[in-house]
């Protein structure tokens, strides 16, 4: 594992005490064969900056873009000492709505913010250590009463809960963790993070943000239990071998009313909207089923499913998913102590997008915009969401995480 840390320089005098700007550009918006993706990044960045000087640039970009060119593009527009971080997506979210094949840039500026960013590479061998490593950025912040650690991770690098545990062991309960796992437009092949001009796989980025004003974090999923609980009779980490002493895949398909002969591609689509729920003290957590072993008849989740615990088949629909969107926004805003948000970051699970469909996500982003009263919003559809606000667990599936910055 290699790590690199950047600390943002003081802001330009004369700027307002803190601000957030969001810009968006999409290849789909452009007409004509020559437009391509050239200049998309710069265009989105200019929109986000609005002529101001930022202390942090956060970029969410489609994995289908020429990412190297995009990074080069952004680098020319930003001072070298300003952290430019981000990740690839399975769809972008901005004030203007959802998009694909695009880039969304959020810029954070103003003296009230203190910012330090860190990168850890080759994290696969030690996710916990990598999480701990980037979390050290928090200790580099100037004295601010409110601090969070933003985590952007390679969603295909391994058990993301380990990254959260590692970061938590360093920052402790006093600093919330928030963020998402990079996507790749549902190819499930290569997800990347960005760090100052570089496009990296098997890496994580941590951005410590200190502020004079509070942050609020909302976490909701919008799924509900169906039927009787199932006992997890055998599991190893994120793999579920048996449920109720039967092969997990068979139980899962039967309880969901799906055909036992479903082919892998159809299974992937089906599983995205049919997660497992596991029992927690204050309800249940959702486990995204990323795949299955059709020979072993096991289920592969992307977060741990403890052996000996109870699980449920979960279902969701437009209404429940959108209700969760509203709830997450309300929860986040509530924590601002009555202050107005300056901007919002949203990390929304790709599975929720699967339930809502393209029209549904338009409505979802509209409802976020309405809930946060039109302040700038930037986000992406992700392969896993991070929000540790209570307890020690902070890795979520099929969930919407909203970070409101006042």
């Amino acid at each position, binding site marked *: 594992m290699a790590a690199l840390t950047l600390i943002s320089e003081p802001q330009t005098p004369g700027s307002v005490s803190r601000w957030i700007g969001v810009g968006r550009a999409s290849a789909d918006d452009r007409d004509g064969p020559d437009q391509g993706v050239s200049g998309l990044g710069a265009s989105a960045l200019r929109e986000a900056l609005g002529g101001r000087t930022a202390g942090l640039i956060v970029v969410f970009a489609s994995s289908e873009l020429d990412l190297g060119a995009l990074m080069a593009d952004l680098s020319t527009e930003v001072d070298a000492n300003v952290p430019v971080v981000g990740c690839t997506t399975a769809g972008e979210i901005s004030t203007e709505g959802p998009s694909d094949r695009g880039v969304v840039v959020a810029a954070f500026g103003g003296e009230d913010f203190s910012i330090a960013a860190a990168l850890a590479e080759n994290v696969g061998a030690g996710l916990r250590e990598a999480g701990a490593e980037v979390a050290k950025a928090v200790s580099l912040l100037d004295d601010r009463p409110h601090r969070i650690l933003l985590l952007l991770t390679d969603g295909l690098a391994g058990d993301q809960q380990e990254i959260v*545990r590692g970061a*938590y*062991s*360093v*920052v*402790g*309960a*006093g*600093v919330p963790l928030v963020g998402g796992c990079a996507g790749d437009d549902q190819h499930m092949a290569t997800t990347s993070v960005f760090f100052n001009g570089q496009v990296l796989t098997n890496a994580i980025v941590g951005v410590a943000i200190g502020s004079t004003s509070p942050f609020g974090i909302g*976490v*909701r*999923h919008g799924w509900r239990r169906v039927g009787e609980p199932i006992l997890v009779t055998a599991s190893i980490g994120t793999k579920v071998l048996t449920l109720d002493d039967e092969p997990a895949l068979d139980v899962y398909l039967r309880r969901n009313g799906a055909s036992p002969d479903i082919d892998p591609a159809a299974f992937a689509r089906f599983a995205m909207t049919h997660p497992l729920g596991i*029992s*927690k*003290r*204050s*309800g249940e957590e959702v486990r995204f089923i990323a795949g299955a072993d059709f020979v072993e008849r096991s289920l592969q989740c992307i977060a741990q499913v*403890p*052996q*000996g*615990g*109870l699980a449920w088949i979960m279902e969701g629909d437009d209404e429940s998913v959108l209700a969760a969107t509203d709830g997450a926004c309300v929860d986040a805003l509530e924590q601002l102590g009555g202050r107005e948000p300056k901007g919002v970051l949203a990390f929304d699970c790709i599975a929720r997008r699967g339930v809502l469909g393209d029209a549904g996500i338009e409505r979802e982003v509209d409802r976020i915009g309405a809930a946060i009263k039109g302040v700038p919003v930037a986000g992406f559809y992700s392969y896993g969401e991070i929000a540790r606000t*209570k*307890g*020690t*667990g902070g890795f979520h599936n099929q969930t919407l995480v909203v970070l409101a910055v006042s």
Partner: protein
Amino acid sequence: MTTSTPGASGWALEQLTAYLFGLASAGDPDAVVLEAIDRAAEAMEAEVAALICDGSVVSSIGFANGEAPVDVLLETVAGRHTHADLPGVGPCHVSGASFESQGDYCLVVARTGDVAFSAEERNLLRGMSRALALNLQSARVLTAMNERQALMERLTRILRSINSRAPLPEVLETIVAGAVELIGDAYAGLRRIDPLDPEWAVVLCGIEATPGSMLPGQRSKVGQGAGGRAISEQRLVVIHDYAQATDALPVWVEASTQAAMAAPVHENGIVVGSLVVGSVVPGRRYSEAEQSILMSFADHVSLALTDAMTTESLHRALEAARHDAMHDELTGLPNRALLRDRLEQAWVRGCRTGSPIALLFLDFDDFKDINDSLGHDAGDRLLVSLADRLAGSLRPGDTIARLGGDEFAVLIENLADAATAEGLAARLLEVLLEPVVVNGRDVTMRGSIGIAVSEFTEPDSQSLLYSADLAMYEAKRRGGGRYVRYRPDMHLDTLVRLDTEQALKLALSAGELVLHYQPIEELPSGRIIGAEALVRWQHPVRGLIGPMEFVPIAEASGLIIRLGEWVLRTACTEATRWPDDIEIAVNLSPRQLEPELPQMVREILAETGLHSDRLVLEVTEATAMADAPETQRIIEELHAMGVHFSIDDFGTGHSSIARLRTLPVDQLKIDKSFVSTLDDDSGADVFISAIVALAHGSGLVAVAEGVETPGQRCRLVSLGCDRAQGYLFSRPVEPHVISAMLHDRVLVQHS
């Protein structure tokens, strides 16, 4: 996310089940603890959790950089408070459960927010802490077993390298590396007391994380630091909080040593150094298991050192054995084996260069007398001083060897001419003549030397030794005190002798030896009262051979023992076929008068059933008269068995009348040289009359041998001789003839 209070007790059971699965999947105690606090916090949705043991935090979650406020947590739990303001976390609900597991443990969880820990949650935490106690214990046992396994494997490797006689430094490095690997410390080293300055110990080999802390050759005072104290106190020394120790080594303090321990190492049970490990991990404390591991490794160092020393002494012993195998123990001179070797080498060199070599074979004259009169110790001392003297008279490069007994050989190379060898021989004989003081007495020794000079025409080098030996015998034969050069005809004489010896050996096995018997008559009645057994060799080619031709050879070669036994057995067997008042006389060689003789006779008598008083053993006058207590004892023992003794050839040697009285003999045999002169009136009858008188005066029977004429017999009768034997009555005859004679009681006349 919906928030709901935990429902039925099913929830707690479910959490506990998942928790137990989690603990069971963790391997070592550290992983168990980590899993326990992770899962406890997760189950309770607590932000922080900590495991505290005896006032220190073992592990925690949710405190920035792991810095759990142990005092606040303990106070809260001890005071049964349910709230606390935890630094970095804020106001929390707190719950804790204590348990005992090699220490006082407390598992604490705390969470922010409004919801206090329910009774069910507190019960769950208690269940979790109990489960942790159990799992911790079994994980410790498992880890201990794994450690034990690793230790055993490591020790086995070490033993293998000791057994395979790997070089000592390699073995020691293996041990030190093993100690570092198993104990997991930054550095380790082996110190050994400086043999030249035992106040100091020197690092023999070391493994170090911090440069300079364990450099080989580095010196430290014995009695200082863990390693130094392990030597002076001869026990395991453990120092925690190293920098605070009064006797800490400055170089180790500089290297940020936090803790160190050392165990003494021994060589043949004596402390010669110590095996030391040191840690730079803050708060490092050595467990009992680690202490015993170090002791184990130190024991192996001791084993390796002792073994290496044993190997070295074994090596020295082998060297010594090699020397011993090539040298004479008494004089320290080269022995026969080494002489043979040097002779061979000299021969090869001589063949190449053409310069002759000579071999002198030296034997002291009458050395046996010294042993007999002064004792073997005195004889040995004499040999040593004479050997020194001889060796001192040689040129450098010449070899003198003791071949055994009083036999020596001198090898001379690059000989100018034969005269040089003779000059040396003369000089050696001369230096021998100078008196040596033994037991306070001046002893003068003479010697005989045989010289063989090689012109490399012999078949091999060793024949030179044989030639010199022959020449020496010739010198002896000529009276000793001289040197004789070898001549080829000496060789021929010996070859005949050797042929005979070999053939005799075969004859004995092949049944070519026979006994003839000469009757002995009683005077004057003429009645046959006994017969003398006389051995003959019925040679397939040469015909019948008399004893004079082969008995001396048998005596010289030692074959006489077997021959004598055969004669005795055969004669006794034959005599059993005779009338039971007939005596059988058998000649004994002086060499048969050994302590085993009475037993042999007893067995033969028992075997044959011959009554002991029919057996007469004849010994020569010289044998009987030798002042040998052993001979006396043997004769007495046989006499006690009822066996009679006869002194053969009486009158040819010197007899002591006093000795004759003390010896339990029964007969004197008058030598035929006296009898044969009876006819010519040479005054022999005076001698015979004196012998008869002596015999009668001593209560012995007088027997005349070699009676050939009636006149002789007549004189013997008149002189009072008791018995006679000779050609007048009968030559020695075959068994069946004597048997017939005895049964018929008639003498068969032979023409």
